[in-house]
């Protein structure tokens, strides 16, 4: 076999897969077709637009730089691929106050505002797709959810029921500073002392803002909703 034929063979065997698995899907997915809402089924008209607020781009950077994706996923798989949807607070909430069961699988609009979808590598910790909603409705009921996340990042094993957590502590995202006048609004409730307080750095603030943007509570159009019809309470 000549070198020319050899390289042609390699190019063909690799190139077909390269086009089919990488290049064409990449180009096709760059601009997803907008989803039109219809009054009859969606109760609204116009085009579906994913809602997400917070310092998403900054926070995603902190998330990536500190390797959160190594232990946490952001993917609620459909039931054919795993049991994630059955967990009561991963894909939504099993019993949301007003809307009943809001659980749904991850869709292509959930990563709005990010450059890279942090699907994740290993689930050493729980999935974070719905973390913002979970903190608000379950972990920090009646409290400020940001404060709960700051305390959790500072020491994931502080709360007695989480003594077994293997999440690293992110103490380096906090600074101890002298209190000037009154305490800062976002100072941690512990640490410091009479004259000193523990406050989150800019990175910690961005990260918490990003984590709070991970919610699955926006109703999705029927075209994206593959769940069976659920009873509305």
């Amino acid at each position, binding site marked *: 076999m000549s*070198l020319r034929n050899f390289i042609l063979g390699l190019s063909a065997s690799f190139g077909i897969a390269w086009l089919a698995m990488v290049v064409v899907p990449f180009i096709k997915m760059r601009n*997803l077709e907008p989803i039109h809402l219809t009054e009859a089924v969606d109760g609204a008209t116009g085009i579906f637009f994913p809602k997400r607020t917070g310092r998403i781009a900054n926070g995603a950077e902190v998330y990536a*730089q500190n390797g959160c*994706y190594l232990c946490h996923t952001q993917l609620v798989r459909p039931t054919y691929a795993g049991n994630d949807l059955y967990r009561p607070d991963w894909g939504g909430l099993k019993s949301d106050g007003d809307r009943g069961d809001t659980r749904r699988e991850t869709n292509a609009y959930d990563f709005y505002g990010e*450059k890279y979808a942090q*699907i994740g590598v290993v689930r050493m910790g729980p999935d974070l797709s719905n973390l913002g909603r979970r903190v608000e409705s379950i972990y920090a009921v009646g409290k400020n959810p940001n404060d709960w996340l700051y305390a959790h990042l500072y020491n994931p094993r502080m709360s007695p029921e989480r003594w077994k957590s293997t999440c690293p502590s992110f103490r380096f995202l906090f600074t101890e500073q002298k209190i000037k006048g009154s305490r800062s609004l976002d100072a941690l409730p512990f640490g410091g002392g009479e004259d000193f307080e523990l406050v989150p750095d800019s990175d910690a603030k961005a990260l918490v803002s990003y984590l709070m943007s991970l919610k699955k509570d926006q109703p999705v159009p029927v075209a994206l909703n593959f769940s069976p019809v659920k009873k509305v309470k």
Partner: protein
Amino acid sequence: MSSATPTTPEQDALLRAGIDRSLRHPVMFFLTSGAAWLAVSIVLGIMASAKVHSPEFMSGCSLLTYGRVFPAHINALIYGWGFQAAFAVIIWLMARLSRKECTAAGIILAAGHVWNLGVAMGVVGILTGFSTGMPWMEFPAFAWPVLLISYFAIVIWSFIQFRVQPEGHVYISQWYILAAMIWFPWIFITANTLLHCLPGHPLMASGINAWYKSALMFLFFTPVALGSAYYLAPKVTGRPVYSYSLAKLGFWSLAIIAPWAGMQKLTGAPIPYFMPYLGAAATVLLFIPAIASAINILRTMMSSPETLAASPALRFTAAGIGGLALLGFSGVLLNLPDSTLPLTQFSLSGYGFEILALYGFFSFVMFGAVYFIVPRVTRREWLSRRLIKIHFLFSVYGIIAIVLFAILGGFEQGIGQEDWKQPWQSAADRAFPYAVGTTLAWCVILFANVFFFIHLALMWLRLGRRSSHPTLLAIHHSTVSPHGEEGDIDNAGPGSMPAH
């Protein structure tokens, strides 16, 4: 001119000695700096693995948080050790097989330093918090053009050597090495431009990253290791390759199947449905090239059992090829949609599979090549059979333990993850003992490699034995020195050395 086809054994030996001499500095540079990165990577690996079960271990400082130490560990292993070992093997094998002396040793050496600088900056970048957050591509974005340019400056000469070689037989090793040399830049440029330079859908970026990881394993590290094994097995035993058609089947099935693999990591994600399933199917089908090549190489080695028992190069290569067979088998076991894939998609098994590919298969074959190449380029023999034996035994124990703990532990963990009626903590509890086991296994691998590092450093300092007798592993009961009778002081003289 050395390019003239040698006719007598003396001329042939002179040509080989000339090739070895021309490549001595680049090859030894890649091997020693690669080994240094291997040491860094193993130490970081132990730290990262310990943090999985003991999160307060060395947790005071941002540099050493798990999310930075782990990517530093895996990237140092891939770009520091893996690539540099591959470079040494590529340039040496291609020169030997094309029968051409290397005329660009200085440029290769300079490019090798640039590569090392790129890796060092990348690892420091990860540790100081500039990681990109894309698995196996965590080096800050400035690193990839540096690595790519130095890659071309290192391997282009081997490509030229192949082009200008005298007409004649093209060996299967050359096929593999040439293919790896072409596939790698294609994969690397694709992944890096699409992820760093062109805006795309975030999920597709994640899919391309999964494809990149798989392609790097199966279209760069695998062909380089197979090229080395297909060279050493017939060379050391002195017998022809068992089956030429099996070798062709192994090569073309790898070339056709491997580019489709990888995206099964995104099963259930909202990307086109065919992609994860094709990825899973391709990873399962990689069993075919793995088994075809493993049988072919092992049968070639078995044709001379006494050489297999005595030669350190063959013993390591054989173990690595055993690792390849195991890798093919695990690919089937871990990636069956609707049965095992939901359990392993997000469990420790993925790490076990990657370490099996990078250490259990690739690194073992590279160690085999190191034990063969270094005496030839330094013209000194390995100092001690015992150091080689310890390196071999503890490496084998260590990799078997990692594979058992991570792959089987990953199944246990996956069962816990899928058991949605139990609280999440039960999945973490199931993984805990296996994480402890993985840390211990990395310690064993570090122990094994300490002996390798010492031995290689002594060889690099030209403190090897000056003898014409190779260091073999078999013990001959005789009254003379265990290395055989002392021969002439300097080895590798014309025609003095049989292959070992």
